[in-house]
């Protein structure tokens, strides 16, 4: 049934290079002209007709990675850190709303570059009382389940430019960002319990050729298809509490169809992820923790009767401190291992006769960052990551120890962002 809602995921593939460039320039033009016409007072357009809201963002950064192929293969300073988006929301009737957002993203090796429809959905307010609110979202929707999943590409909504890779792994971005399908979001409130949110969704996402190669390896010529997906989450904020707690799960199946002279065979991949998170928001301090357990089952692909069942675990603890009205500091530590029964990667190295070094079994990251508010809607963010291990680098199925030959690597980045 979700075929009904399918939208072209990679517009540049459909439109060809020239069409894609025109589209990119047009969207840039729209963002910039809105900015120039309305300045900061974009709400002028909104007040005139409060059924329509238009918002957007534009961000450009510089990123330097020493010791891995996270952004590029040559290790040079890179400008491949562009995020532009424009969205509109229109209230069609008292219960029906249409909302859409187009984005242009460039993250180097992290995901495929180009213009995409980020979401395009009908929001139907199916049930509402003073205590309950239930909405059904149909179309291309986002992943509304993890702490930052629904706005991972929107720079000013993120705690850092590069999100913790244990949970927000860029290598599987296309399949975790959302997809075409349906979601039900219910919000409940009562004086005793506080706020309770329950979300459930089922989507299919199109996986770009680049993302397929990021997952499988550069020698893959086949295609990876997202067959089914079920996601659910529950969030609870006790009344007047600065804390919020969440649990989420994802159950997704993928199939791989081999291409011409492919080193891989047909096969399947089943991915189950469990999340738990807590978020504290105080006057000067925030504290966040998000934990993940993922089970990846691979069948076929590497041999007719091959299968691999591994459970990875990871997560991060993070704190933000508001030093002055403009300046906010960030500190975060994250830990991830691809197989909980082989936390130091020793078995991985042994099994592959030393072809894959043990540091592909884990990835830990200590991050320090700051954001500075230049004005209401303009902010600069910068951060440095000290990383040990390469388990969250691509390709995933067959890692590349030739390019990623360092156990220790670092990443620094600065990004300027504007939104309205």
């Amino acid at each position, binding site marked *: 049934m979700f075929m009904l809602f399918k939208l072209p995921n990679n517009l540049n593939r459909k439109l060809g290079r020239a069409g894609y460039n025109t589209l990119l320039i047009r969207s840039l033009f729209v963002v910039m002209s809105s900015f120039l016409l309305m300045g*900061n*007072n*974009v*709400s002028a357009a*909104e*007040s005139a007709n*409060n059924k329509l*809201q238009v*918002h957007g*963002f534009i961000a450009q950064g510089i990123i330097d990675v020493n010791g891995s192929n996270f952004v590029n293969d040559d290790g040079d300073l890179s400008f491949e850190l562009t995020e532009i*988006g424009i*969205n509109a*929301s229109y*209230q069609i009737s*008292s219960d029906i*709303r249409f*909302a*859409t*957002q187009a984005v242009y993203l460039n993250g180097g090796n992290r995901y495929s570059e180009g213009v995409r429809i980020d*979401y395009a*959905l009908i*929001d139907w*307010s199916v049930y*509402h009382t*003073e205590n309950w*609110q239930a*909405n059904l*979202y149909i179309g291309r*929707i*986002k992943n*509304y389940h993890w702490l930052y999943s*629904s*706005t991972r590409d*929107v720079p*000013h*909504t993120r705690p850092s430019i590069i999100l913790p890779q244990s949970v927000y792994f860029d290598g599987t971005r296309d399949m975790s960002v959302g997809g075409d399908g349906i979601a039900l*979001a219910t*919000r409940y*409130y009562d*004086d005793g319990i506080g*706020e309770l949110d329950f979300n459930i969704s089922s989507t299919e996402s199109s996986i770009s050729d680049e993302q397929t190669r990021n997952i499988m390896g550069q020698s893959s010529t086949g295609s990876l298809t997202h067959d089914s997906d079920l996601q659910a989450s529950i969030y609870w904020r006790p*009344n*007047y509490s600065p804390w919020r707690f969440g649990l989420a799960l994802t159950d997704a199946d993928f199939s791989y169809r081999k291409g011409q002279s492919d080193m891989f065979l047909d096969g399947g991949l089943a991915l189950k992820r469990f999340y738990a998170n807590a978020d504290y*928001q*105080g*006057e000067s301090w925030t504290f966040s923790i998000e934990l993940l357990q993922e089970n990846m089952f691979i069948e076929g692909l590497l041999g007719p009767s091959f299968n691999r069942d591994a459970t990875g675990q990871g997560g991060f603890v993070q704190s933000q401190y*508001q030093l002055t009205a403009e300046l906010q500091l960030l500190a975060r530590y994250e830990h991830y291992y691809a197989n909980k029964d082989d936390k130091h990667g020793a078995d991985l190295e042994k099994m592959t006769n030393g072809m894959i070094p043990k540091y592909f079994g884990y990835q830990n990251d200590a991050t320090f960052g700051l954001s500075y508010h230049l004005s*209401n809607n303009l902010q600069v963010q910068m951060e440095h990551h000290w990383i040990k291990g390469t388990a969250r680098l691509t390709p995933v199925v067959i890692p590349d120890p030739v390019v990623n030959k360092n156990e220790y690597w670092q990443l620094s980045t600065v990004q300027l962002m504007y939104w309205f």
Partner: protein
Amino acid sequence: MAFPSHSIQVIVNKTIEVSSLKTVQLRRIYSMRQLRWADNSAIVVYVLPSQHLIHKKFSKDVLHIFPYQLDRIWNKLTFSGLGVAPLLVKTQADLLHAVSITPGAIGYVDNYTDNIDKEIDVHVIQITK
């Protein structure tokens, strides 16, 4: 030196026949978790910019929530397709005007009685615990 004293008042369009709201209800309205009045008409929420002193006072003293928490809630709604954020106006005069002409509107101003304008007619509502 102390800040000049502010008395933040919550105002609604005169079509709204509500004389008081509980703090938790107002908080639900401003976090966009309650989108309708009791008569099922849509609530149109107006705000001043996050950096505005009156917005900060309203957020902390009336809603008991920090302005950045509201920003995070609204950003998530706006940039993920989940919902809409309140409508932003630049000044208190703009806000007063918008609430007075928009059916179902709610907003807040500082010392409403002190700057009575005969052209503007809104209801002040009581906020109770």
